[in-house]
């Protein structure tokens, strides 16, 4: 690895890498993100390796394992450059075909192209796919061009140029002014102005200061920070370097979730490479400025996403939050001024320094600037990571990008903000997505999880899910959160089991308000949001459970019954074969019957029935 000692060195390194890359006529980029790994992308990569070697093409064709381009639903994803041919659901056995057709003869492999089901046509380039068309990919666009384990790839696309610019052409105060002018707000959930936080931390008199990158993405259903850390860790490091220089910190920490092994590995590699290259460590680029970063692994506690709990965890203690009367910018890690930002916030910084605050603030709404990455998941056709300008409507995200409903069931809500957020009903889908609008309707931006729910989702079950989640994750330090959530969970359990009564809902609401008003930290303060928003928009569903003892979505097992439609059943016997309790009887080619007293309501029969004859009531 080359060591760069000045801006000139960095520029020369970049040019050398670019001239070397010219030898490659083509690049085969295979997504190596965790999503594609679940579909077996490693085997696809090995197949390419083998085939390219056999055809003696390794010199001409570069093979890259990159970060996540976002369209996880269609993985494993393979993109061929410079033609921008986008292949989806690629299997190892497809690889020889791609080599002989596309690489050797420039023809497309039709069956691997994305098919637009509405227009009934195949699409070659990913920019034309509806999923990507409405996106503005500022942060994610480099993910599919970079092998995250090679610093050279990041340097080649202009990496660390913003850092050099900040270090040699800007004063710390100028950097802070630029970030303030850009309007960048914290992407971890609360939306605190980033520049203001930096300024407060810089103005603290203490000599030792720290910066922290929060990669403890605990919100279930959110994975944009994982994708950034796995796919482009140097962009996060570059943001941290710029922030540390502006604030006057010489040490930084990246707190990575234990559940993200690949993010941890790639961040570790990035740090080592940046150190070797002289971009991290002592006297960076000959400027006299020192900065180094350490990685701390989380322990699987949701509450550690909260800044004071995260800091306690880095200090090696139990991750309990403290009262925030004194903010962490004054007294944070080891009592020193500490600036903590989320992964996505840090990744935005190099872009702002490169292109300017004016450019950044031209994107988005009046109070929410730039883009936001959302993880669009749940019961929607196209799932994956989407990066959109702030202010886009929920409808555009869910229907234009997400392609709408998945299984022929109507979409009824979207859950944003994780366990601190709420469910927004379909009637409000014209809402622009920004920090303020989402809070107004009882949810919040959160870190960017967007879980789409259709008629097959029971809102009582969702409320119950979140309350139990938070009850389990509550650190137990303060009483309202520890006990209140437990009682709320009991009330919801009762409702879901058909044991709710007239008083259940008013008691639930009252408790929810007390927990929100009196809890110590953000976890408890926002813990009531999922329940209160569900009650606000989906009260009839709760009432159906209480009064009619019915679960309209057919989810709450004590209230549902499985049966087989005599007219639709073809008597194939698949259900009887799969049933774990042998509760299904019937002769071959005759209509089958479910014995309610033995049925465990697992739903396996419904999953295997090709005739759609299994009904839930």
């Amino acid at each position, binding site marked *: 690895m080359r060591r760069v000692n000045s801006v000139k060195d960095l520029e020369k390194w970049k040019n050398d890498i670019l001239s070397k890359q010219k030898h490659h006529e083509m690049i085969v980029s295979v997504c190596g993100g965790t999503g594609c790994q*679940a579909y077996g992308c490693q085997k696809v990569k090995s197949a390419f390796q083998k085939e390219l070697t056999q055809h003696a093409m390794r010199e001409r064709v570069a093979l890259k394992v990159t970060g996540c381009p976002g369209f996880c639903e269609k993985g494993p994803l393979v993109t061929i450059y410079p033609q921008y041919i986008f292949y989806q659901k690629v299997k190892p056995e497809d690889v020889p075909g791609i080599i002989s057709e596309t690489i050797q003869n420039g023809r497309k492999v039709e069956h691997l192209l994305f098919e637009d089901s509405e227009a009934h046509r195949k699409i070659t380039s990913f920019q034309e796919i509806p999923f990507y068309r409405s996106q503005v990919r500022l942060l994610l666009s480099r993910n599919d061009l970079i092998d995250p384990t090679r610093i050279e790839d990041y340097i080649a696309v202009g990496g660390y140029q913003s850092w050099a610019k900040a270090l040699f052409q800007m004063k710390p105060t100028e950097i802070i002014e630029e970030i303030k002018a850009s309007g960048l707000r914290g992407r971890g959930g609360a939306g605190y102005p980033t520049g203001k936080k930096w300024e407060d931390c810089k103005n603290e008199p203490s000599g030792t200061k720290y910066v922290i990158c929060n990669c403890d*993405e605990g919100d*279930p259903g*959110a994975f944009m920070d994982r994708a950034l850390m796995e796919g482009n860790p140097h962009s996060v490091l570059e943001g941290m370097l710029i922030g540390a220089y502006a604030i006057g910190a010489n040490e930084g920490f990246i707190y990575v979730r234990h559940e993200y092994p690949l993010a941890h590995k790639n961040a570790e590699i990035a740090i080592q490479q940046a150190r070797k290259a002289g971009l991290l460590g002592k006297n960076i680029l000959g400027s006299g400025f020192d900065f180094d970063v350490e990685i701390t692994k*989380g322990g699987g506690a949701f509450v550690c996403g909260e800044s004071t709990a995260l800091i306690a965890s880095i200090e*090696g*203690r*139990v991750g309990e939050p403290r009262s925030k009367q004194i903010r962490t910018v004054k007294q944070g890690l080891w009592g020193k001024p500490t600036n903590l930002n989320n992964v996505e916030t840090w990744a935005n910084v190099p872009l702002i320094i490169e292109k300017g605050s004016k450019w950044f603030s031209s994107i988005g709404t009046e109070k929410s600037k730039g883009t936001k990455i959302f993880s669009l998941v749940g019961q929607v056709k196209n799932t994956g990571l989407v990066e959109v300008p702030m202010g886009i409507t929920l409808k555009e995200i869910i229907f234009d990008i997400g392609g709408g409903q998945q299984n022929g069931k109507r979409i009824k809500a979207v859950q944003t903000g994780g366990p601190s957020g709420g469910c927004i009903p379909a009637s409000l889908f014209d809402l622009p997505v920004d920090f303020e609008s989402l809070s107004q309707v009882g949810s919040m931006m959160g870190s960017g999880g967007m879980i789409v729910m259709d008629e097959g989702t029971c809102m009582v079950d969702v409320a119950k899910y979140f309350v139990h989640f938070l009850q389990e994750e509550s650190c137990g330090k303060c009483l309202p959160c520890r006990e209140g959530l437990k009682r709320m969970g009991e009330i919801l359990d009762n409702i879901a089991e058909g044991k709710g009564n007239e008083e259940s809902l008013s008691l639930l609401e009252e408790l929810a308000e007390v927990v929100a008003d009196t809890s110590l930290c953000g976890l408890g303060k926002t813990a009531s949001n999922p329940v209160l928003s569900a009650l606000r928009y989906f009260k009839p569903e709760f009432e159906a459970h209480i009064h009619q003892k019915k679960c309209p979505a057919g989810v709450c097992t004590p209230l549902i019954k499985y049966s087989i439609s005599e007219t639709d059943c073809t008597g194939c016997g698949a259900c009887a074969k799969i049933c774990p309790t042998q509760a299904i009887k019937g002769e071959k080619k005759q209509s089958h019957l479910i014995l309610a007293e033995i049925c465990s309501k697992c739903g*396996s029969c419904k999953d295997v029935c090709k005739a759609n004859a299994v009904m839930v009531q």
Partner: protein
Amino acid sequence: MNLNQVDLIVDKYQEKRTALISILHDVQDRYKYLPDEALKMVASRLRMDINEIYGVATFYKSFTLTPQGKHSITLCLGTACHVRGGPKVLRELKGLLHIEPGQTTADRQFSLNVVNCLGVCAVGPVMMVDRKFYGEMTPIRAKKIIEKLNNKRRGVKS
């Protein structure tokens, strides 16, 4: 039990108390759980109260104080996996293995764990078997995976 490794791990972190969580992670990576003796050794090396060590080891979900099975089955029950049928997969696994989440089968073959999110939400429900991710899990697919692992042990060709 050979605890030499624990010494080396504590050495690696220069006996720093602040590195406690990292030390425990490394110990668990090595032994697959946190043996009592190892925790006592960490306590004495870091000159910390054993209660404090237990406090940390029991607070964080990633740590386990009980020996784990040969195969680790981790099911994600994050929101996206939940609405896409994760609980049905859990019911199937519990029925197949006759254990609850957090437990290990009597023959020490399987440990079943549930996590709140593995961050692979787009392909949920997600199950991780011995660090390998499987997407779009259904009760039927889960059953096949367990059967395959069982057959492998018995030397049956599947």
